């Protein structure tokens, strides 16, 4: 039988170390909503999402109460809209109209984000894909809860450089369209290489076409729990360090598995995956950077950071895999800047640069995340940053992403405030040298060779 020390340990994790279930994300296929009539298509989308998700928030709250564990977000992901709207959308306004429908139904069912305003263009763009991409600035500036993502490359197909160039322009345009809110639109827009179909985390969540009609995916989080566990083994060697992270990750992930199963049972929707992630929030004590410091660095970004992050990421996966029957999504440590107080401190102290963050993305999940850059950054420079990150993902057979925010009207040394879970960020300098001729070539970077690994 459970003993009092185990109960106290679990409750301490929840109350003092910010253990929570970060998100229950309901994936909904909209493939059966395709229609050549735009209004009918929107109506079908609204009705399908409403019917599927009307009890989502209530169910999440009920589970939270039964187990005494906070469930921070309840969210929805849908089939990439470029596929759904292709038959009826002839203009960017048509596509943005679908975004408005998604926003309306998200508000109606009470979820805080809905993801899937997306296009998958890792090899080429259909006219609908391109139209959707061109509609992103309008869609994100006229909606509140819609998140957008675009997959620009993969290990099997290479990188679509035409789309990379276009996305550089669209990110800048989104920043311009939402400049009144410190270019907040860009915080809801992410580009990927090797995007997973079952990611529950925003802004990159979408419901892949290989998924079932509906699915429950859960993302757990507990950087504070890992940090606290590591405080108990200060000065010990790497074996002890790694074992501690692994055991802690196991415990954290078990909670996610339990919540996912309960949500699946209560909603009558199959359980998809648990995303084994260390996702920070701006709250004190909920930081991945703080774990890196606890491992032995003065600041995130100091020499040794990439190695520390690599071992952290690997141990989280090793511990988590056994705790859950199905693992998927992005699974790993997230290193967003604005959402992590330790990262913000490292940038402010001058310890962390975009180049070091890029190196860190080689060994952890996702990529350059929530990084504020000067508003006068050129579109081609943003495309260059994206291309670099996509190349890391393509060659290393992993997911990488870019979510940068060119803050219009602000420059290096200033700070931007996004609010809530998105946090605040000091604006980071970008390498000023040009990559115009590289980005403007057009075409595709071929898929890499899968042998001769060096």
């Amino acid at each position: 039988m459970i003993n009092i020390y185990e109960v106290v340990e679990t409750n301490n994790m929840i109350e003092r170390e910010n253990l929570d279930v970060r998100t229950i994300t309901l994936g909904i296929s909209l493939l059966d909503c395709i229609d050549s009539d735009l209004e009918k298509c929107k109506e079908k989308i609204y009705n399908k999402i409403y019917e599927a998700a009307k009890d989502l928030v209530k169910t999440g709250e009920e589970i939270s109460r039964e187990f005494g564990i906070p469930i921070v977000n309840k969210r929805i992901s849908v089939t990439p809209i470029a596929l759904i709207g292709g038959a009826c959308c002839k203009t960017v306004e048509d596509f943005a109209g679908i975004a408005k429908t998604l926003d309306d139904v998200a508000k109606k069912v009470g979820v805080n984000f809905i993801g899937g305003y997306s296009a998958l263009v890792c090899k080429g763009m259909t006219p609908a894909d391109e139209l959707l991409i061109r509609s992103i600035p309008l869609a994100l500036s006229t909606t509140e809860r819609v998140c957008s993502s675009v997959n620009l490359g993969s290990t099997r197909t290479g990188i679509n450089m035409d789309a990379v160039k276009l996305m550089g322009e669209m990110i800048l345009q989104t920043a311009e369209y939402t400049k009144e809110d410190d270019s907040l639109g860009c915080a809801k827009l992410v580009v990927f290489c090797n995007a997973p179909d079952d990611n529950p985390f925003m802004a990159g969540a979408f419901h892949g076409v290989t998924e079932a009609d509906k699915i429950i995916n859960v993302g757990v989080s507990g950087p504070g729990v890992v940090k606290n566990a590591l405080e108990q083994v200060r000065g010990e060697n790497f074996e002890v360090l790694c074992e501690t992270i692994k055991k802690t990750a196991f415990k954290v992930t078990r909670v996610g598995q339990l919540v996912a199963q309960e949500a699946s049972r209560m909603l009558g929707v199959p359980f998809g995956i648990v995303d084994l992630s260390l996702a920070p929030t701006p709250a004190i004590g909920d930081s991945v950077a703080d774990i890196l410091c606890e491992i032995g660095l003065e600041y995130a970004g100091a020499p040794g950071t990439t190695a520390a992050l690599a071992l952290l990421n690997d141990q989280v996966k090793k511990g988590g895999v056994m705790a859950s029957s199905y693992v998927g999504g992005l699974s790993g440590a997230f290193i967003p800047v604005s959402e992590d107080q330790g990262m913000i401190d490292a940038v402010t102290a001058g310890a962390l640069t975009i180049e070091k963050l890029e190196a860190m993305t080689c060994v952890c999940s996702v990529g350059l995340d929530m990084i504020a850059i000067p508003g006068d950054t050129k579109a081609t420079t943003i495309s260059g940053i994206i291309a670099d990150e996509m190349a890391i993902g393509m060659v290393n057979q992993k997911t990488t992403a870019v979510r940068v925010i060119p803050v219009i009207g602000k420059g290096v040394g200033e700070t931007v405030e996004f609010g809530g879970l998105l946090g605040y960020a000091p604006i980071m300098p970008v390498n000023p040298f040009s990559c115009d001729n590289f980005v403007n070539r057009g075409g595709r970077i071929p898929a890499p060779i899968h042998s001769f690994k060096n």
Partner: protein
Amino acid sequence: MKKTIITVVGKDTVGIIAKVCTYLAENSINILDISQTIVQDYFNMMMIVDTNNSKKPFGDMVDELDALGKEIGVAIKCQKEEIFDQMHRI
């Protein structure tokens, strides 16, 4: 059997157990096990209870025990056993 874990954490005072037990008895909740310890000068009590014949829905029990805790000046939590089982047992 549906088991629930009730935890009481706070400054030790007269009658904590009595008040919690009275509430449970009034609602036909059977106590299976009680243990207590002092952690960092705080009184920690854990009860394992059987809520099969409980007169109240689970959510109401959570709220009422929370209110009772505030009255006595301690924190009372009420959680289904599975969260602890999942975390600490393979």
